[in-house]
């Protein structure tokens, strides 16, 4: 067999070798074309983001209708205006509110989802498969079907205009995406590790906290990044539950700002929009590999 491989004799093998050589040549030539095309896509993709960034340095009346990216003047004036805050509430109040919610939701999701994921991936108990199907089904469920009763209950409990409605679900593992992501990760860990621990007399709590949880670090990091970004960008939840501007998160404050400022002051709006997006962008630049990797393996939506 090995001899026929060294000396291609059949017609098929000769053709195969020729095609491969041609493909290699095509690839080198194609690489220039590839980069030209890929860069063109990149320009289209990034244009809105770059336009937004550049607009934030332009005077307000120069933004709409200006294709040009370079600001002619204005400098940091827009940012100074945006940082003045809205209606007597400091800009930093909104940042702090958003940070509190994001930190709370990261903590809640990491705790509750890792516990649930361990139960689904490593434990045997009655009803596990049924619950698993339920968990997957909630991923496909439009969330609108639960918001009305949830709102009614939180209203009865006097929790409107508090952060409870926005955080409670995070501590109760309602975001199935993260449970699923962690299940997949735990399933990939060698079972010998827990079996050895069982022989040593360890129970599930010990196995979870001292073996699985430390090994889950990559999945926890990916989940934390997504949890932070989703919480930071969340608009619908805060829109429903937060009524008082002092409680507003960045996206709500941004909307309030756009409503209140005259349309001519696009510059400050852009500056504020950039500031609202800044933490997400920083996370993206710092953790792009984990983010893209998380999407690739789990199909998470951004």
């Amino acid at each position, binding site marked *: 067999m090995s001899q026929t491989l060294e000396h291609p004799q059949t017609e098929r093998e000769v053709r195969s070798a020729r095609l491969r050589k041609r493909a290699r040549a095509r690839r080198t030539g194609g690489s220039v074309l590839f980069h030209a095309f890929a860069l063109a896509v990149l320009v289209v993709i990034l244009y809105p983001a770059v336009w937004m960034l550049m607009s934030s340095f332009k005077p307000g009346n120069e933004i709409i209708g200006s294709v040009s990216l370079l600001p002619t003047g204005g400098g940091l004036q827009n940012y100074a205006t945006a940082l003045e805050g809205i209606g007597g509430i400091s800009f930093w109040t909104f940042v702090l509110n958003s940070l509190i919610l994001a930190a709370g939701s990261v903590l809640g999701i990491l705790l509750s989802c890792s516990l649930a994921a361990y139960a689904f991936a490593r434990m045997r108990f009655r009803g596990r498969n049924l619950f698993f199907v339920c968990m997957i089904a909630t991923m496909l469920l439009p969330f609108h079907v639960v918001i009305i*009763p949830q709102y009614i209950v939180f209203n009865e409990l006097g929790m409107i205009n508090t952060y409870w409605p926005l955080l409670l679900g995070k501590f109760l593992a309602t975001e199935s995406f993260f*449970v699923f992501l962690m299940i997949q990760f735990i399933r990939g860990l060698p079972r010998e590790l827990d079996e050895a621990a069982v022989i040593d007399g360890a*129970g599930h709590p010990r196995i979870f906290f001292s073996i699985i949880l430390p090994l889950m670090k990559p999945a926890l990091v990916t989940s934390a990044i997504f949890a932070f970004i989703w919480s930071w960008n969340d608009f619908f939840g805060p829109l429903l539950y937060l009524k008082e501007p002092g409680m507003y998160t960045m996206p709500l404050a941004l909307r309030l700002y756009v409503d209140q400022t005259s349309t001519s002051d696009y510059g400050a709006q852009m500056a504020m929009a950039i500031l*609202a*997006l800044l933490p997400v962008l920083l996370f993206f630049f710092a953790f792009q590999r984990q983010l893209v990797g998380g999407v690739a393996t789990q199909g998470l939506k951004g």
Partner: protein
Amino acid sequence: MADTTTARGPVRARRRGRARANGAGYAFLSPWLIGFLGLTAGPMIASLYLSFTDYNLFSPPVFTGLENYQRLLTDTNFLQAAKVTALYVVFGTPIKLAAALAVAMLLHSARRGQGFYRSAYYLPSLIGGSVSIAIVWKAMFIDEGIVAQIGAVFGGPDAAAGGWVGDPGRTLPMLILLTVWQFGAPMVIFLAGLKQVPLEMYEAAEVDGAGPVRRFWSITVPLLSPVLFFNLLLETIHAFQIFNSAFIISNGSGGPAQSTLFYTLYLYFRGFRDFQMGYASAMAWVLVVVVGLISLLLFRSSKSWVHYSGDDK
């Protein structure tokens, strides 16, 4: 320990062991279980009940039978919302997935720079749903905005007052463009799928004289079908739930001329502006049934076009 020596002992011990295993399992699962029962399953049943009532949050619900559902059929706003959302799903999702697949195939063939482009193309998916981007999108399309100006260079039609934002015929294309712009997430998933396709298959097909089109339909599509199915299902369900961008761009009105009155927007208006909780619940359940039927249809059809590795074809 004494009864383990009797004949029935081991059975009892095993039973006790199983009960303890159940207990430990439920202990770990309890946060999820409480959340599922209290925040998902319970509310679902509650909203099903509410959908048969008249309830305004302040006085107790009054049972009205099927009245809410009957009203939906004659509510022109509801029909408009259903139409706008259907158009958005039907056009937005396939275009977005086609773009994602095309770019994924392009990137897959690259030898260098794949990682860089992949990350960069993914960025819009991460920020596209934010209020910030909705504001930027609006600024780009409003009045004599840059989009209208670039369009004019290519001989596009004159912008109506307010630009695309003020033209009921162009708000939907504008929002579809916004979702297509976020093709990065499905693209990343396609790329991961393409990595699983063995290169030798393409080489073998090429040797046998299959052209690029034939190779695409006979190798790429079947081998990628599980990923295609996954993306199609998730993107479709996702598209039904568009809210933020439409809400911000229309200034919370669903306008102009109700052209951005998406399903979720109308549901929000009915439930949280007019406090017609019963009516909004009926809307929510119609959405659940529609999305459920579409998912079911996709799952059913998948048997004929999705091939999992190890399947007999």
